[in-house]
C-alpha cells in the first residue's frame, strides 16, 4: 500500500509543478479551441536548446567519467529499445483488424525516446534532489536508433514475406545515418562533443542552464496542445492503438526500472539514473521518430503511430510515468 500512497503524494505534488501543469494547460487550451500557438520556429529552437544543453552537460561530465561504469547501462539501453519494439510488434500483430505496417511503426515509436519527456524528468529529479550521472540522458540515441531501426527492418521483412520476396531489404546504414542526422540527435551529439573537447562551462552556466526549465515549460504547453489535437485523429484508427499507448509506457518503464536496479546493484548506477532509464523506456518519440518512420515505413498511417504516441503515450509517460518511477526510487533506494 505504501508505494501507492507514496505515488499518490508524489503525483499530487507533481500536478502542482510547472512541468506537468503546463502540459495539462496545453491540453485544456486546445480542448477549449484556443487559437494560441507557439510559432513553429520558436518551438524548433526550444527543442534545439533543450537537446544541446543535455548534450553539453553530458559531455562536460564525460570528460572525467569512468567509462566502465557506463557499459552496463548503455547495454541495457540498447536492449530495451530492441525488446520494446519486438514485444510491441508481437502483441499488436496478434490483435484483430490492425495493419502490420501500422503495428511496426507504433511499436517503433514506443521503443524510441521522447526528448521532452526526458527533459521533464531531469527537472523533476533536480527538484526532488535526486542526483544522476549527467551522461545518462545522453544514452538517448542508444535506445532511439536501435528501436527505429528494428521497426523499419521488421516492417520491411514482413512486407517482403507478404509480397513473396523481392521487395529488397532495408538499407541499415542509411537508416542509422538518417537517425543520427536528424535534428534532435544531432543537437544532442553536437552538445556532447563540444562538452567533451572544449570548455563551454561559462556559457552553459550563464545561458543554456538558466533557460532550460523555462523553455521546457513552454515545450510542455506545445506537447499538451498537440496531444489534444491528435486525439481526434487517433479516435479514427483502431482503438487497440490507444489501449496499447495507455499500457505500454508503464510496462516499459517498470521493466527498465528493474534493469536499472540490476545496474545499480552491480555497477553503482545512481538512483536518478535508474529513474531516467525508466523514463526513456517508458517514453515514446515525438520529435525525431516520426519523420524517420514516415520515410522508412511509408505504408504506415501516421494517424495511428503519431496519434498513439503524442495523444496518449507522452501524456501517460509524463503524468503517470515520471511520478511513479520517482516514488518507486524513493521507496526502493530509501531516499
Amino acid at each position, binding site marked *: 500500500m505504501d508505494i501507492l500512497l507514496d505515488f499518490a503524494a508524489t503525483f499530487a505534488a507533481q500536478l502542482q509543478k510547472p512541468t506537468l501543469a503546463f502540459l495539462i494547460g496545453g491540453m485544456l487550451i486546445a480542448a477549449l479551441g484556443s487559437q494560441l*500557438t*507557439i*510559432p*513553429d520556429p*520558436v*518551438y*524548433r529552437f526550444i527543442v534545439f536548446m533543450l537537446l544541446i544543453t543535455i548534450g553539453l552537460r553530458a559531455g562536460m561530465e564525460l570528460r572525467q567519467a569512468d567509462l566502465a561504469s557506463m557499459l552496463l547501462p548503455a547495454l541495457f539501453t540498447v536492449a530495451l529499445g530492441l525488446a520494446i519494439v519486438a514485444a510491441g510488434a508481437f502483441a499488436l500483430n496478434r490483435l484483430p483488424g490492425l495493419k502490420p505496417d501500422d503495428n511496426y511503426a507504433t511499436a517503433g515509436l514506443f521503443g524510441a525516446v521522447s526528448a521532452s519527456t526526458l527533459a521533464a524528468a531531469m527537472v523533476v529529479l533536480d527538484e526532488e534532489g535526486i542526483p544522476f550521472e549527467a551522461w545518462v540522458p545522453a544514452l538517448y540515441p542508444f535506445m532511439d536508433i536501435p528501436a527505429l531501426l528494428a521497426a523499419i527492418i521488421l516492417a520491411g521483412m514482413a512486407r517482403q514475406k507478404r509480397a513473396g520476396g523481392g521487395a529488397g531489404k532495408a538499407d541499415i546504414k542509411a537508416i542509422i545515418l538518417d537517425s543520427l542526422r536528424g535534428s534532435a540527435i544531432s543537437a544532442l551529439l553536437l552538445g556532447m562533443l563540444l562538452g567533451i573537447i572544449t570548455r563551454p562551462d561559462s556559457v552553459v552556466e550563464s545561458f543554456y542552464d538558466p533557460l532550460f526549465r523555462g523553455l521546457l515549460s513552454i515545450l510542455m504547453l*506545445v506537447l499538451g*496542445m*498537440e496531444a489534444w*489535437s491528435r486525439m481526434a*485523429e487517433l479516435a479514427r484508427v483502431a482503438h487497440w492503438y490507444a489501449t496499447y499507448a495507455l499500457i505500454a509506457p508503464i510496462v516499459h518503464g517498470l521493466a527498465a526500472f528493474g534493469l536499472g536496479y540490476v545496474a545499480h546493484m552491480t555497477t553503482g548506477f545512481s538512483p536518478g539514473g535508474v529513474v531516467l532509464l525508466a523514463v526513456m523506456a517508458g517514453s515514446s518519440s*515525438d*520529435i525525431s521518430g*516520426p*519523420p524517420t518512420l*514516415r*520515410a522508412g515505413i*511509408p*505504408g504506415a498511417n*501516421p*494517424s495511428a503511430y*503519431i496519434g498513439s504516441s*503524442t495523444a496518449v503515450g507522452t501524456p501517460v509517460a509524463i503524468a503517470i510515468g515520471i511520478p511513479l518511477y520517482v516514488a518507486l526510487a524513493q521507496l526502493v533506494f530509501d531516499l
Partner: protein
Amino acid sequence: MTAFHKATKIILVVERLLRDKVLAIVETEGAKGYTVTEGIGKGEHGLHGTDRPGIAPGFTIVRIEVIVAGRAAAERIALTVSQRYFTDHPGIVYMSEVEVLRPEKF
C-alpha cells in the same frame, strides 16, 4: 516582338520529406529549373500540415512547379514521379499549357 512560345507546366504536390527526391527526378528527366513553395493540404491521405508547431514538420506539403519546353519531358517527369512514389506516398501531379518568353531557358 511578341515572342511567346508554347511550353508545358507540371505541378507536383508532395510531402516535404520527398522534396529532394522528386527534385532529383525533375532534373534527371530534363527540366532546367523549378520553383518550390510550401503549404498545407488535404487529400486522400488526410490533412497535411497544421497551424500548430509541427511535431513532425516533414509532413507539410510542397508545391513544385516546373516548366519544360517539350511536352514529352513533362509527361516523363509526371509519370516517373507518379510510378516511383504515388503508390504508397501522398501526392498529386497535373499539367497545363503555358506561354513563355525566352524558350531557350526551358
